[in-house]
């Protein structure tokens, strides 16, 4: 692959966005995206992630005072057509009046690329996305997955400085989504292109992002690697939004966390905390003295390879855990739980 373009570093400083009707979509945001990095903007709808992407793209202007820089060069006043960024949309946004090959070659045509070079580049893109056979198809003859492949090829054909993806997999069904996610991941790594990826799906964010920016109500809740965010969530919102987080209320005493359902040994527990958090995989079923907590089964879901249990321990919500044991669980049955001390978190 002949991707000679040097990857781009993107910096946003003080970028806020207030829409004409007074809605504040984005609080002043500072964000530095390193060259060649894949950054995922993650959050529920209305959190400002798409607005951030559109500001980077040049489809929206930040409020006065906000600045967008590409490799240290101010591009804030430039509109999207002058920024040379590739965009991929949830709705594919392919031109229905053009064939697959014409769609892919469109950006090159605008750049007045000579016919031979254009055809060669389109061929290269078709091969890269493994859609050579579709070259002459009309857009309405393609499946969703094929359409998104064409959209990726179209965006990459012009060798953009960065690739901006707005929920590219959301419109696809689950199986296809997984397949294409792996493909996009490989593609981004191979090309080494700077990518900004917007999604509301935390699994997608964890799989694709070098770093994840978790957003809530127009503000950044946390920026970090997937591991950081999963293992050391900065806020309750992040803890709940990324994966499943168990929370149990109590107090710290005698090197342990004392709850209504029993005591979890926790040597280094901060003295002031009233809530302990841990992931489902840090809980295991235990008998007798090995058990830290005792609770009753509120629900059991047999998933085939494992069983997902909800266990009531007197907290606000039941604890969630998964077990691979073959035994059957009955509603109301009492079980003992052991918590891995390495998995304990507090805020």
């Amino acid at each position: 692959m002949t991707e000679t373009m040097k990857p781009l570093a993107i910096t946003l400083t003080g970028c806020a966005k207030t829409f004409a009707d007074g809605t504040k979509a984005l609080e002043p945001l500072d964000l530095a995206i390193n060259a060649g990095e894949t950054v995922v903007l993650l959050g529920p709808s209305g959190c400002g992630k798409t607005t951030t992407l559109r500001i980077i793209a040049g489809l929206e202007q930040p409020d006065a005072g906000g600045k967008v820089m590409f490799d240290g060069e101010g591009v804030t006043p430039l509109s999207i057509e002058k920024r040379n960024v590739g965009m991929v949309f949830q709705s594919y946004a392919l031109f229905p009046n053009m064939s697959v090959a014409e769609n892919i070659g469109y950006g090159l045509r605008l750049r007045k690329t000579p016919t031979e070079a254009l055809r060669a580049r389109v061929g290269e893109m078709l091969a890269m996305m493994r859609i050579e056979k579709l070259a002459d198809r009309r857009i309405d003859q393609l499946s969703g997955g094929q359409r998104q492949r064409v959209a990726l090829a179209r965006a990459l054909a012009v060798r953009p400085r960065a690739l901006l993806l707005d929920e590219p997999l959301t419109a696809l069904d689950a199986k296809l989504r997984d397949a294409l996610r792996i493909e996009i991941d490989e593609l981004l790594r191979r090309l080494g292109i700077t990518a900004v990826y917007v999604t509301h799906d935390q699994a997608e964010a964890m799989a694709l992002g070098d770093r994840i920016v978790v957003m809530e109500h127009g503000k950044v809740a946390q920026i970090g690697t997937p591991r950081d965010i999963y293992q050391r969530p900065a806020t309750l919102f992040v803890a709940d939004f990324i994966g499943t987080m168990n929370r149990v209320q109590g107090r710290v005493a005698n090197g342990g966390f004392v709850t209504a359902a029993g005591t979890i040994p926790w040597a280094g527990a901060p003295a002031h905390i009233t809530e302990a958090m841990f992931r489902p995989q840090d809980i295991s079923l235990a008998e007798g003295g090995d058990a830290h907590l005792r609770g009753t089964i509120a629900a059991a879901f047999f998933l085939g390879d494992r069983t997902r249990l909800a266990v009531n321990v007197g907290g606000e919500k039941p604890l969630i855990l998964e077990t691979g044991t073959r035994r059957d669980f009955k509603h109301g049955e009492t079980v003992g739980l052991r918590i891995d001390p390495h998995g304990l978190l507090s805020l």
Partner: protein
Amino acid sequence: MNRDGHRLTLLLLPAGIFFGAFFLLPLAQLFHIGLTGKEGWGAYTAILTDRNYFSSLLSTLGLAAITTVVTLMVSGLAGVFLQRNRFPGNGALVAMLTFPLAFPGVVIGFMVIMLAGRQGLIGDISRFLTGDKIVFAYSMAGLFMGYVYFSIPRTILTVMAAAEKLDPKLEEAARSLGASTWHVVVDVIIPGLKPAFISAGAICFATAMGAFGTAFTLATRINVLPMVIYTEFTLEANIAMAAALSFVLGAVTWVVLAVARTAAGSTVAAAG
């Protein structure tokens, strides 16, 4: 299967009777009357051989074509603009633009005379500015102005409805690939509006081919087919010629629309 066939025939019968009584029979009768002249097919061949008839056919076609193109351009621009930009008075302006729908051709002709006639506004202004009085109401130019005026409302609503359905993401995608405003218009907006342009254009063209009232108000000697038919029918009492011209007017309009529809590769009802 057979029973279904019978029932279908029965259900189609009312439509069939209607179609026969109000379309096929009159048309056949019209065609037949065209043949009742002294020379049989003479009335039909005269349309091609007689310079007056042929030139009026050509000028009618030309007028309808130019009216359609200009109307689509004006309505396309205005329709997309009105759909995209909400401003105070937007609704009132759209309502005003559709105002001429209710006017008969006579009123349109009257308005053209008030604007570009001997006592018209344009003449007064041009005389004040240059000393020459510009008068074009009683010619093809005046007729063209009137036709565009009453064609715009028919077209603009169709364009606005289609503009509302355009996907803004398509324009954003084009721009992200480096498309200027001009390219967005040519490569995204116009293709997106094409079905609306074809259907609105067909109605516009057919109406301009057959409109009579405006021409009649502006000048009795204006050389368009509906006027010629009127003259043949009422003044010359040449019924066969009038019928032949009428039949050809309908047939030519139908052919033009069918060709345009095929060329556009889209399913649009040809307005005949």
